[in-house]
């Protein structure tokens, strides 16, 4: 990373956004008074480091092709006051996937959206869900142990800013031996007339032998350009498992960084599916730290972009101990002038013998102006491992096209069948059937061009036969 202090004095100037942030830090810190000492210290430290490094730009290897350099010259409102709780979430938000019920939690403009008196829910089974701000006061020991300790790989200016400035976020704690039956769905809503930068912070802790499935939806955004900078820390205890689904269908003006860091203990299992259907510029960071033997991480993603959209998947897997498995499968279809970046880095440390690590990134370019930068990368210091990596960028398989057309199928339908089949390899990995069916349906619609044409509302399709409704009534909040 090139730091501000490494630059020539003449160049040592902060960008608009950096200046903006530096001027606001004191106020931001005052607003967050009454926090745990450890959190406060983390904020101070992150801020000091940020002042030295600044925000990343095109000179940084991992941001070389990123459109986020467009953000640094913009000015954002850094704080929006905590919105009042005027309506129940069920009144303003509607997402019906047939046969799939979730416990919906939501953030509005980065704040945990709930009645004032219950910022933190403790359920019968001991599961705690609620505001991270309240949680740090009620569960200081959990914070002491995990906050800021998990997101320690690939730290950059934006994640530092998140630590220094976050106002609120979601906290989930699953006690030992609890299998949470109902999926938790986190909805992020943004409703502002200002151009807002939202720094929200989530912490998810799974005790031993527990299970949780979490759906993280970034698709609930109004049309104001915004910058959403989220850091999520996840701790998966021994023999626990987490299914994490990220669904992204945001407007074309929004910049989104979704940085998720996971610490996995012995024999824990993590399954991630990142489904990116729309968005101006989306950067998904996934840092997985395999810290206990027998841990498994299965990381998958689909991205279907068009127009000038960009998706950037940065995946880092740290094999710290022996006998862990990781697999990465990211597939994308890119149309028009859209672009995708895949940066997969698997680090196999010296002691991590008997590691299995697989990495694959396949892309289909529909036009000559679409672009992919793919960097699957392995760094191996152990000598008894099984690792592979690969990437392809291509067009649809001509042999398959001919085979389909020889059976009488027209070119358009043959293309659709093949594109869908290409994406389905990832969608098939979604275990929850109703969710899989809905996502497959969204993918089909997206490929037929039925989702992308909804300029005004990326959430709601006009076709009557959709099994999935996903709508937020912004007029009520």
């Amino acid at each position, binding site marked *: 990373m090139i730091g501000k202090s490494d630059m020539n004095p003449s160049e040592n100037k902060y960008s608009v956004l950096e200046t903006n942030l530096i001027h606001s830090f004191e106020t931001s810190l005052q607003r967050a008074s009454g926090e745990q000492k450890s959190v406060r210290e983390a904020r101070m430290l992150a801020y000091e480091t940020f002042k030295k490094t600044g925000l990343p730009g095109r000179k940084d290897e991992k941001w070389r092709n990123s459109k986020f350099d467009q953000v640094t010259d913009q000015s954002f409102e850094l704080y929006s006051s905590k919105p009042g709780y005027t309506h129940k979430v069920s009144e303003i938000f509607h997402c019906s996937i047939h046969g799939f019920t979730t416990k919906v939690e939501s953030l509005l403009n980065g704040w945990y959206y709930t009645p004032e008196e219950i910022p933190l829910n403790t359920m019968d089974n001991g599961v705690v869900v609620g505001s991270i701000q309240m949680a740090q006061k009620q569960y200081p020991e959990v914070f002491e142990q995990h906050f800021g300790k998990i997101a320690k790989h690939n730290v950059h200016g934006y994640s530092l800013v998140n630590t220094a400035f976050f106002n609120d976020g979601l906290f989930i704690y699953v006690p030992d031996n609890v299998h949470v039956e109902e999926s938790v769905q986190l909805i992020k809503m943004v409703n502002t007339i200002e151009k807002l930068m939202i720094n929200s912070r989530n912490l998810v802790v799974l005790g031993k032998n527990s299970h949780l499935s979490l759906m993280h939806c970034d698709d609930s955004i109004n049309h104001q350009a915004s910058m959403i900078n989220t850091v999520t820390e996840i701790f998966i205890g021994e023999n626990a498992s987490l299914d994490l689904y990220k669904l992204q269908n945001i407007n074309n003006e929004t910049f989104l960084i979704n940085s998720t860091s996971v610490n996995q203990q012995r024999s824990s299992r993590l399954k991630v599916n990142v489904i990116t259907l729309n968005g101006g510029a989306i950067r998904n960071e996934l840092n997985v730290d395999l810290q206990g033997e027998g841990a498994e991480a299965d990381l998958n993603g689909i991205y279907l972009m068009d127009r000038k959209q960009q998706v950037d998947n940065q995946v880092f897997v740290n094999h710290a101990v022996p006998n862990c498995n990781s697999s990465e499968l990211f597939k994308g279809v890119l149309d028009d002038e859209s672009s995708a970046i895949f940066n997969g880095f698997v680090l196999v440390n010296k002691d991590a013998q008997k590691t299995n690590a697989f990495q694959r990134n396949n892309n289909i370019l529909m036009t000559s102006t679409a672009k992919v930068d793919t960097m699957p990368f392995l760094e191996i210091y152990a000598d008894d491992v099984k690792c592979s990596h690969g990437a392809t960028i291509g067009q649809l398989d001509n042999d398959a096209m001919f*085979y389909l057309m*020889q059976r*009488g*199928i027209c070119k358009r339908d043959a293309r659709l069948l093949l594109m869908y089949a290409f994406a389905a390899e990832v969608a098939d990995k979604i275990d929850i059937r109703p969710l899989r069916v809905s996502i497959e349906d969204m993918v089909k619609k997206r490929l037929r061009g039925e989702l992308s044409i909804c300029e005004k509302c990326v959430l709601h399709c006009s076709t009557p036969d959709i099994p999935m409704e996903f709508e937020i009534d912004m007029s009520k909040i």
Partner: protein
Amino acid sequence: MLLNINNLHVSINGKEILKGLNLIVNEGEVHAIMGPNGTGKSTLAAAITGRNGYEITEGEIWFKDELINDMLPNERANKGVFLSFQYPVEIPGVSMTNFMRTALNAKHEFEGLPILTGGEFLKRMEEKKQLVEIQAKLNNRSVNEGFSGGEKKKNEIFQMAMLEPRLAILDETDSGLDIDALKVVAKGVNALRSNNNGFVVITHYQRLLDFIVPDFVHVMYEGRIVKSGGKELALELEEKGYDWLK
């Protein structure tokens, strides 16, 4: 007349493979095309079905009195041209059901026939599966994915049975088949033979022709048909090889 190929010249990347080929296939006839490797047998199949990259530089292909030289592969298919592939393509993620449904719908749309209902379609699938003795459930499997060599070839004949083409080209359908699978495939083909359709059977070996008995046998060499005869010609070739024809 079903198929009438007149003085056909075909090039791949500027290299001429077919050099003035003539062939006439009438309804109810089975034609075998034999010949050594690299003489253009598969190129002929590709040219008739309209595969990209096979450029017709001279000559005509008439199908049911219509010139099809410039038609798209799917247009030819809908008119009744079918190719049983030498190497059936694996298409992961596309289920056999979706594939056949889409294909049959396209055909019905082309012919102005009503689209089959889900029930009718599945009934037809089951019927035709019996014909080629496919026991396995095809419905949820991806096209040819993980199929054995024999299953792939049976699957080609199954698709042929589903689509009921007027002209079927079998490109080395016998390659990679054991004798039992070969018998099953041949039985399927024979069951589909009628006075209404024709077959072009491309093969290296006499063996297949014991089971699918041809009306005519043609020998190809260097992009042309150099000898034609009845089914006894195949036996002669089996005995003497191709050298005496060069």
